[in-house]
């Protein structure tokens, strides 16, 4: 359990540093690479929570596919790749205030509601079989709707990106 705490602390610190660099970096490509660190850290947190299928999916979909899309997006929308000034709005101090108030409120509410509720000592391992039984059982209709969402997104992306 102590090892879990240490692992959580290290990964969480890396994730927070990475997230801060994503929103403060002056270089779009560096921001994308810091985002990889955050996404991989999230996968590690899922392993700590005994959710191995979600962790593997996170690595496949986010670290694999979504990051490639971001790199392509950066490549296709910019002539030069490199440091750039002026990536922030003029109103960024207001955004900082909003984020601080929001974070403070969330932290207060969470500490109030779940003060020191422990996670189960031995987290119930949800096997891939349980996950798939749930997706194709009680959650079949949402899964079906999600297939249509993906189809619509695919068609929409092709229509948007087509030249003519």
């Amino acid at each position, binding site marked *: 359990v102590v090892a879990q705490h240490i692992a*959580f602390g290290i990964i969480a610190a890396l994730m927070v540093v990475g997230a801060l660099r*994503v929103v403060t970096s002056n270089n779009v490509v560096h921001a994308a690479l810091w985002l990889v660190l955050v996404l991989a850290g999230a996968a590690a947190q899922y392993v700590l*929570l005994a959710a191995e299928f979600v962790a593997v999916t996170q690595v496949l979909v986010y670290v694999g596919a979504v990051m490639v899309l971001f790199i392509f997006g950066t490549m296709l929308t910019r002539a030069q790749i490199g440091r750039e000034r002026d990536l922030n*709005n003029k109103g960024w101090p207001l*955004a900082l205030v909003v*984020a601080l108030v929001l974070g403070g409120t969330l932290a207060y509410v969470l500490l109030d509601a779940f003060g020191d509720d422990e996670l189960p000592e031995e*987290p119930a391992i949800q096997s891939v079989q349980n*996950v798939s039984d749930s997706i194709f059982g009680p959650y079949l209709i949402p899964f079906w709707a999600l297939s249509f969402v993906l189809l619509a997104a695919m068609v929409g992306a092709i229509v948007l990106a087509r030249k003519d």
Partner: protein
Amino acid sequence: MLINEFLLLGALLFSIGVYGVLARKNAVLVLMSIELILNAVNINLVAFGAFWGTVSGQVFALFVIAVAAAEVGVGLGIVLMIYRNRATIDLETASLMKG
């Protein structure tokens, strides 16, 4: 472990993502900040799933991952359209709706 460790990490990532969405003006960076927000929500979902001992949290996290993938595809398509029409993805220039 306390469930609050995971929930507070999620809240922190969420706030950082909100800051990014509001403060950035490069459209690709705004989309990256949205990914931060979605990941914060996913950590909360999986943590609550482990807390209550059900599999629903993981199923919802998988749904969110799939929707996020669709969202990035369409979002980057829109960003490419803006770039093609205006040769910039600075969101401050996309202000035609203001009149």
